[in-house]
């Protein structure tokens, strides 16, 4: 989804985008060293802001919420409230660290979609996921009749996190490219195309 948004944004100004996939740290390092023109998706940090220009607006804002079946009357306020539920988590995710730090038992899986299968099979009660990612998995994995049995909490497990495109300050045209992106992104949002991309991703 993020790639689509960035590609469509640059398309508005007649620029093509090619993506190169690396382990996360290397992806950032290559951008920092200007081996590539830029990188996605990165949240702001004082360290990174020293070496990168950030897009003015985040490309997306991720919200991590709990997913569960509608048949479960689930509401939570404190971590103590979660203790009576079977929680499915994902290996290496920040949400898992937060749950574990709060003394919660988490059943771990390697792939996020496994937790949604486990929810449906009633092997876990709740699982944290990004709102967009969660509904993408549900709508791609299950027929509509099953997909409609899922719901999510509005309360977030993690704070909202905006992610940006970054261009290295070493890039001779870095500032210019970022300005081009910012202006085109504004056009993408105003045209309604941005919402369309997100809607398509969620309801695919």
């Amino acid at each position: 989804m993020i790639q689509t948004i960035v590609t469509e944004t640059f398309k508005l100004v007649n620029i093509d985008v090619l993506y190169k996939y690396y382990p996360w740290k290397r992806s950032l390092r290559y951008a920092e060293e200007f081996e590539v023109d830029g990188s996605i998706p990165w949240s702001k940090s004082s360290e990174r802001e020293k070496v990168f220009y950030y897009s003015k607006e985040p490309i997306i804002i991720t919200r991590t919420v709990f997913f569960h079946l509608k048949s479960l009357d689930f509401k939570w306020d404190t971590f103590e409230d979660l203790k009576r539920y079977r929680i499915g988590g994902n290996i290496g995710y920040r949400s898992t660290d937060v749950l574990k730090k709060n003394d919660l038992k988490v059943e771990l899986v390697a792939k996020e979609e496994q937790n949604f299968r486990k929810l449906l099979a009633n092997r876990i009660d709740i699982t944290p996921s990004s709102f967009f990612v969660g509904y993408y998995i549900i709508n791609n994995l299950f027929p509509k009749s099953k997909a409609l049995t899922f719901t999510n909490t509005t309360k977030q497990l993690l704070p909202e996190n905006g992610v940006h495109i970054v261009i290295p300050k070493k890039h001779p045209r870095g500032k210019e490219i970022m300005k081009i992106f910012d202006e085109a992104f504004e056009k993408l949002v105003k045209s309604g195309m941005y919402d369309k991309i997100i809607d398509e991703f969620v309801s695919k």
Partner: protein
Amino acid sequence: MRKLFTLLLLVLLSISGYAKETLILSTGEWAPYTSQKDPSPE
């Protein structure tokens, strides 16, 4: 002759700014939807 003409056309397009610019962006290795992976490694 045809090759020479194509080359000349490409050079002219490039000079006149009609050639499309391509940016290369790096990103993390992920499945299409697993953007839940922490996008901010330490």
